[in-house]
């Protein structure tokens, strides 16, 4: 296993997870439990690929994806903030509706089972090749590292990394973050400090939707090269797991994403590799590695983690 290639693969796999995890972080930190990440990713993926192929521009596609995610987020917000619905149910419903609706619209607009047309060059984001990559390619370790791990990512790859830093800054270094965290823990306190909890939560779920849209755009515009029905394939749930695993903290949650992605990359490379001489491990055992690793770390290292205290509880002014 080439560690450089493994790292590059880990990063690629981590990008949508990171976007979705950061997305979930905003929502949950504000006090909204979000199991609808999956559905918002899917909406973004569909809108992104559809618009990219119609407009011929990856950028326009990306904007469409972000908007689509954001709009679904706001709808989810109305249901769970204004109408005080059960957030678990709403998230589930969003996932189901998004799965059906993207396929439905895809068939209506593009036929072929809801798949959007294959995106061609220019409609997709290409890997960015950093200057001097070729020149230092021969330098051992540093050369390939520079060319394929540090460089060689798409613009969205860098955006994902940036989203971690930005999220960290927003949560810990801005007024908005301070209020957000407080709203997730004790909304009454925020309201009594003269800040509208509703507004904060709407903002949070909108940002969450936009980031999910970016995750979806990565899936369809960069990775898949088209939208396919249900292409998010459970990554929204993995992102949620990463978020909980990372204790709702940006840095740690991002690390959890890298861990999941890394385990996945390793898993893919270990399949069919005979261990202990000739004995071939069943594929399923190798495929189980990421899940087992998560469980072991969860039981051994992470222990009890306390999420936002008010998450999942609709805020009602003056309720006791």
């Amino acid at each position, binding site marked *: 296993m080439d560690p450089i290639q493994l790292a590059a693969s880990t990063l690629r*796999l981590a990008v949508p997870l990171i976007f979705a995890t950061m997305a979930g972080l905003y929502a949950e930190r504000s006090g909204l439990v979000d199991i609808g990440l999956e559905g918002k990713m899917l909406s973004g993926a569909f809108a992104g690929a559809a618009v990219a192929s119609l407009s011929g521009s990856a950028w326009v596609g990306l904007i469409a994806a972000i908007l689509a995610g954001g709009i679904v987020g706001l709808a989810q917000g109305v249901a769970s903030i204004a109408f005080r619905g059960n957030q678990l149910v709403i998230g589930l419903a969003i996932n189901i509706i998004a799965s059906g609706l993207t396929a439905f619209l895809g068939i209506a607009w593009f036929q072929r089972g809801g798949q959007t047309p294959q995106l061609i060059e220019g409609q997709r984001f290409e890997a960015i090749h950093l200057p001097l990559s070729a020149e230092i390619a021969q330098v051992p370790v540093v050369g390939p590292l520079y060319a394929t791990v540090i460089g060689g990512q798409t613009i969205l790859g860098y955006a994902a990394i940036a989203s971690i830093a930005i999220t960290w800054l927003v949560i810990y270094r801005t007024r908005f973050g301070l209020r957000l965290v407080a709203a997730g823990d004790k909304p009454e306190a925020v309201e009594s400090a003269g800040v509208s909890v509703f507004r904060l939560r709407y903002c949070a779920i909108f940002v969450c939707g936009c980031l999910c849209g970016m995750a979806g755009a990565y899936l369809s515009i960069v990775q898949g*090269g088209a939208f396919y029905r249900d*292409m998010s394939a459970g990554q929204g749930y993995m992102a949620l797991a990463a978020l909980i695993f990372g204790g709702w903290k940006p840095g740690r949650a991002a690390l959890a994403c890298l861990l999941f992605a890394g385990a996945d990359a390793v898993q893919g490379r270990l399949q069919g590799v005979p261990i202990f001489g000739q004995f071939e491990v069943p594929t399923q055992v190798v*495929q189980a590695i990421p899940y087992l690793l998560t469980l072991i770390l969860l039981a051994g290292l992470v222990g009890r983690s306390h999420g936002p205290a008010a998450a999942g509880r609709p805020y009602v002014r003056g309720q006791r």
Partner: protein
Amino acid sequence: ADPGLLYDLGGKFDRSFNENAFSGAERFKQETGVNFLEFELSNDAQREQALRTFAQNGVNPIAVVGFSWAPALEKVAKEFPDAHFAIVDATVDLPNVQSIEFKYGEGAFVVGALAGLKTKTGTVGFVGGMDVPIIKDFACAFHHGAAYTKPGVRYIENMTGPTPSAWNDPTRGRELALGQYDRGADIIFAAAGGTTVGILQAAADADKLAIGVGLNQNSLHPGHVLTSATAEVGLGIYLTFKEAQDGTWRPGVKQLGLAEKGVGWSLDENNKPLLTDDEIAKVDGIVADIIAGKIQVPSYIQTGACPAP
């Protein structure tokens, strides 16, 4: 009576055998102007229900796609002895059922042989959907084919995932394929339903080669799709509809292999530039040898194991 087509759980547009079957039915519709009925399952419990509903409504013949239909068909076909049924990928031994089986292994062996001819790194890869017998069958035959033309070829294998979403996960497929390219493979055979397009995409992105499956997928990324292991499920459906219309429909088992042109490898303007005449001739020779029985293609399904090539 109009004919009917029942898809497997993957659904009509699975970019795989269901879609293939659909295209066969469409061809029938276009040529004859006769409409056909269809139904997409949501769960296993609907199989008998769907068969009965079609049979009761006089739909004839009723074609079902996929081996998972076999138990339900066996039951319902007995209840409606006057209706005609056809099943793809399984044998149901009843007087009113036509069983259409494809020798997928033969096709996989041939594309494997081509991969063996073309590999520069001496490593070929395989990405399957789920770890189920039919995919193991593909994998085994492919490996043997590659080893036939390049003895001692290195072979890597990946399965996409444990749940049915593995058939529809192009992003994972792409990553697995990129991983195989990193590990030295330069040609990858994808037998993973909708996931396949991700593997072909990886070939284009990594500037390597991949082999499509089911339909002729050579045109998806010209220059990067070496060939496709085709299976003419659509033809099977078309023929069964047509025969019923013409009154020549017969029950029994139809084995469609290389000889019957039920399976094969695709060669068109998209992948012609990748191949020399010599290579084409060699592959055609192997096809002939298999048809003639000079080459035995191993069957994982029959033996439950893949002998070392």
